[in-house]
């Protein structure tokens, strides 16, 4: 190899610049690895639910947290199953799978407690400090 680069900058200097860029990228990677996100928590809690559902499952989403963010993140954590949100819990067909996601930072409304009390059977449940997930069958 005679000359790898015949630009005016020396080869070593060019590699130092590239090294600096790589170091900046590594710092970014490290920072991202240390960050925490609700997605990670939901992925952790859903790992207890995943073995009990089939990939083709439709799970009807019920939660005490009305924000779409939690719903979307729940769907993210349970792929390839589909998590469907009905406008009203009463619209959920009988004998379907219900996925109850509780945001532990929020209170459980009485209407939701009553609805849950009326359901037929709990399959499995799992929880992490901020969230819990319960799989049940609707009546």
């Amino acid at each position: 190899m005679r000359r790898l680069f015949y630009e005016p900058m020396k080869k070593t200097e060019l590699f130092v610049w590239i090294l600096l860029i790589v170091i900046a990228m590594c710092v970014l990677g490290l920072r991202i690895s240390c960050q925490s996100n609700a997605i990670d928590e939901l992925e952790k809690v859903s790992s207890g639910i995943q073995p009990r559902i089939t990939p083709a499952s439709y799970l009807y989403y019920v939660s005490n947290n009305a924000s779409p963010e939690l719903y979307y993140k729940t769907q993210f954590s349970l792929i390839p199953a589909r998590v469907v949100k009905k406008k009203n819990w009463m619209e959920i067909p009988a004998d379907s799978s219900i996925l109850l996601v509780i945001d532990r930072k929020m209170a459980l409304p009485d209407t939701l407690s009553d609805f849950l009390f009326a359901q037929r059977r709990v399959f499995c449940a799992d929880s992490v400090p901020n969230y819990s997930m319960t799989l049940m069958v609707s009546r």
Partner: protein
Amino acid sequence: MIILVALFLWWMVAFGGFCRYSSFKNVILNGVLSLWMTGALASFLFFFSLIGHVNFMVFQWSLLLLGGGCLAFLWRRHWFSLKEIPLGMGLTALQTRLLMAMLLVFTILFSVGADRWGEWDAWAIWMLHAKFLLFENHFTNLFTNDIFFTHPDYPLMLSSLIAFVWKSLGHSSPVVPLVVAYVTGLSLLLGMAASLFELTYRKLGLAIVFVFTFSNLLFSFSHSQYADTLLSLFIVCSFVFYHHRNTGNAALLPLMAGFFAASAGWVKNEGLLFFGLFSCFYLVYNVKHFRRILLYGVGALLPLVVIFIFKMGYAPANDIVASDADGYVAKLTDVSRYLVVGEYYYKNLLSGSQLLLLLVVGAVFAFRWYREMPLWVGGAMLAGYFGIYILSPYGLDWHLGTSFNRLMHHLTPFLIYSAFVCIGQHTNFETLCVRLDSKQ
């Protein structure tokens, strides 16, 4: 990691092809274009492997062996020579240092702004689609309006690239979309700069890196990990082939222009609008060059086939397309909608894109830029987006507020890049800078 090695081998094959046939001397330009051609082809192949239910193990080993074989064959045919690899940029030592310093600043700023799993649409749309694509037997679960919030009709370029690497790693790491976003942003910067270097507008090339590194033109989107920067990159690449049409390989350039323009439609639905408009103007501007048009069409064929199969066979109907005909008529005849969209355009174009406006107005008046294709494509895209807003099934304020800045992000890089090319063509900018340097 097999798939990453396979991708690297194919990138090198494509790079060898570009170095040999594109007649671009600039290694970085060849590197960026060949990287994204490989990325797009890998995405198409991955989609075909999914719909064909090909085992991923078989898929990645086939890619690796074929890539290795191809590279070895080309090596024996002396396509590559490690004796001399000129960067081919013609920069001075100071200019190279400046460029590297700006790239370092870009990397640091990207690192500071980036978040785990990106911003809302990044995880709710692109990464969510990528996660569905990990399941070769159940990826079709994505294509239902039961989970309409994730826009299952959106094309799969970014998602498939992320899924590709996730599958190879064996888990869905948030670092992968981040690296894809970084490489996309960096490629956009380097692609525009390297093209200007290739056209010998070296100071303008450095200036464009400066403009995009030290402004929010790129940053508000690049580290969000959305697909918009990828779309901007494919649009810019299409224009790179357009701007080099008189200096590069007469056969390869139209072919690649067609490929990149059509591939933009595999990144986002807005890319389909771009492809339609770009193709119309390409036809008009090359009406006397039948061979060029033919090659452009051949280049666009594969991406169009992939998009057609996806849209016809898998994706649910787009929310705008699915609206009823009566609704269209009512919206088209509603003057208040035109006023709302017009006012929003007026306010945001004036307040949000001063640099772009300055360049466009300056280039139009000083250099008669209105004769050039990019300005017409940009204008037509703005008009197309205007029409889509009029027909939008969503609340206008919400739709404009959440998407207008993204649409501008699709237009801004290629318009600024094309304006810089125009300035380079019509002024003696390089000589002017030399004179200023010597006076100091």
